[in-house]
């Protein structure tokens, strides 16, 4: 990363820190969701963008993460921050296990297998033997965390929404740095190589099976952590929150944001958070038709996603 990129990053981060003091609590809450989605999209992007495996069921991992956080907080009184590693670990394990058999499935068949996962999980959450933990269709209501006391002692007063925003932002920065490190290193190169030509990669001595299932696991872990953060921000989980449309939304997010791009996850998150609302404002009668128009416009105007369009624009500027 060169100095210009670093300073640009610093400016973006500074802007992200100032943001909650400039906008209303409701907007802060919306931007918190953007950060949450960005983490989930980065996870899915690792799998689909970098490794070339299509998942139509990542909403399921998001749900598992959310339920981990909610159950731990509600039934066992675990503090909210401690639920994230657990949610991540559970999803890492679940994703890895799901990734093992899914390895035999290529392309569209994997897409169908993950679709099955995404469709079935909301119903499994209603299963009555699990009800004592999941709360069945009723779901679980959790309390929103307050800003820690030490901040107040330092003279910083944050309301709940601002605190959750900063907490999410911190987690996101850590997750993005970790992801960036992973993707630019040996494993990242192996992931991309498998996507581009798996036979050649195997011939070069990469353990394809291991890399693919690990990618599935790490991808699920990111999405799970995002789910836990989402549950904390929304204060409620229920099976109806995690229908198959959520999984499709994630896929839309990474394609619009830009496949195999880290900042693409953030652009995609902005898109899936705000464009449905804009569409709803434009037309009450057919919001999804308007959403479809937006989708078509983006796909036509920016075939490599928002990240690709920005990359091209910057390259053109530099040439001049």
């Amino acid at each position, binding site marked *: 990363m060169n100095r210009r990129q670093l300073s640009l990053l610093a400016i973006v981060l500074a802007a992200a820190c100032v943001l909650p003091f400039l906008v209303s609590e*409701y907007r802060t*809450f919306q931007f918190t*969701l953007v950060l949450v989605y960005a983490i989930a999209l980065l996870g899915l992007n690792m799998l689909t963008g970098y490794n070339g495996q299509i998942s139509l069921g990542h909403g399921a991992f998001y749900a598992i993460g959310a339920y981990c956080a909610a159950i731990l907080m509600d039934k066992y009184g675990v503090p909210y921050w401690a639920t994230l590693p657990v949610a991540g670990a559970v999803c890492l394990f679940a994703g890895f296990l799901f990734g093992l058999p899914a390895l035999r499935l290529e392309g569209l068949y994997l897409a169908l297998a993950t679709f099955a996962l995404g469709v079935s999980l909301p119903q499994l959450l209603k299963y009555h033997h699990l009800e004592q933990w999941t709360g069945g*269709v009723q779901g679980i209501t959790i309390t929103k965390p307050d800003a820690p006391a030490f901040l107040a002692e330092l003279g910083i007063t944050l309301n709940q929404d601002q605190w959750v925003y900063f907490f999410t932002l911190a987690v996101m920065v850590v997750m993005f740095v970790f992801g960036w490190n992973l993707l630019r290193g040996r494993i990242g190169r192996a992931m991309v190589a498998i996507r581009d030509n798996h036979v050649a990669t195997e011939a070069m001595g990469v353990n394809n099976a291991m890399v693919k299932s690990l990618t599935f696991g790490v991808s699920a872990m990111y999405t799970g952590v995002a789910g836990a953060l*989402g549950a904390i921000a929304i204060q409620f989980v229920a099976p109806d*929150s995690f*229908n198959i449309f959520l999984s499709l939304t994630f896929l839309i997010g990474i394609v619009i944001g830009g496949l195999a791009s880290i900042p693409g996850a953030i652009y995609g998150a902005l898109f899936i958070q705000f464009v449905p609302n804009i569409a709803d404002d434009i037309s*009450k009668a057919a919001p999804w038709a308007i959403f479809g128009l937006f989708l078509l416009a983006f796909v036509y105007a920016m075939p490599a996603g928002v990240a690709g369009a920005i990359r091209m624009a910057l390259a053109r500027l530099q040439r001049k």
Partner: protein
Amino acid sequence: MKPSFTKIATLLAAGLLSTTALAQKNYGPGVSDKEILVGHINPYSGPASAYGTIGRAIAAYFKKVNEEGGVNGRQINMVSYDDGYSPPKTVEMARKLVEQDKVLLIFQPLGTPPNTAIHKYMNAKKVPQLFVATGATKWNDPKKFPWTMGWQPNYQTEARIYAAHILKNKPNAKIAVLYQNDDYGKDYLEGFKAGLGAKAKTMIVKEASYEVTDPTVDSQMAQLQASGADTFFNITTPKFAAQAIRKAWDSGWKPVHYLNNVSASIGTTLRPAGLDKSVGLFTTQYLKDQNDKQWASDPAVVEWTAFMKKYYPEGNLVATENFYGWCVAQTMVQVIKQAGNNLTRENIMKQAASLKDFAPSCLLPGIKINTSASDFAPIESVRLAKFDGKDWVGFGEVMGK
């Protein structure tokens, strides 16, 4: 720019004037001399989008009220958002309404999970969450949640009425119960047992439950029939209700059959089950049914039909949802009317809890809406009805409170 002395003086004077104005007119957020901003959340898309028409019927009714001069001279402007029956979206939309649009109250959010998602938030923010479109009993909890109120008869109230009918007409009945294994099914079952009282243990000979995920309820129906019961309480959603009705007929069981109001729709339940197999079913009603011949010339139905033709011409005249929306919107207008010029959130809740014998013509004759500080359940009475092969025919007295 440095503010001049005169400017500050004018501002102060304006401030003083507005405080004196406040003494007569007390306004909460979203209220002015000209308008009242009402928030509304409804699933226009997603799995429950069939209910989206309720929102449109409500909007049409407010349009009618506004064209006729509004309420106490103020226009009711409704901001309505789609939550797609997804609880996280409901939270987002409720926050948008409260924090950004600054509405006076949120009216008619639909469904138990979406309402549960915003229950705590609305009460923490002290914003009225009024006349929610779900029959769960928990909306009537003014001590813990003084800012939330239901509207339709809750499941327990309804179940008690079936119990009372059985106790009166068949005191030695042997009852089988089929229920959906979730909060909705359990709510009904609890109310039913409470209604039977001490005799519940001996009268209910068999209970069976099913999951929403089950493909059919055939095996449960076989168990219930084998128990030797002669009376059947059917607590199911439309798809399963249709299966159970058909099975009870085809297997030759033919018990006295009580069907919960949730599945009482002729179109979605009885027709798939077979109208001939549905003859003799009991259910309850609280609204007039615009499809029922006995109300065809009733002033309420005539008025509603004219209203639909003028203000919501694209709306379906057979859908009971449109009649429901028209009816619940009248209750909202009544509360705003009662609040007069004191349009704070506190007073809205106070007036919603002070409805006395309010009987809009859409309700069955004899059913009145009564609320108080300790009673947040507006409609608490229903009337039994029996299916004659074509229509539900109401009979007997209105029962309940």
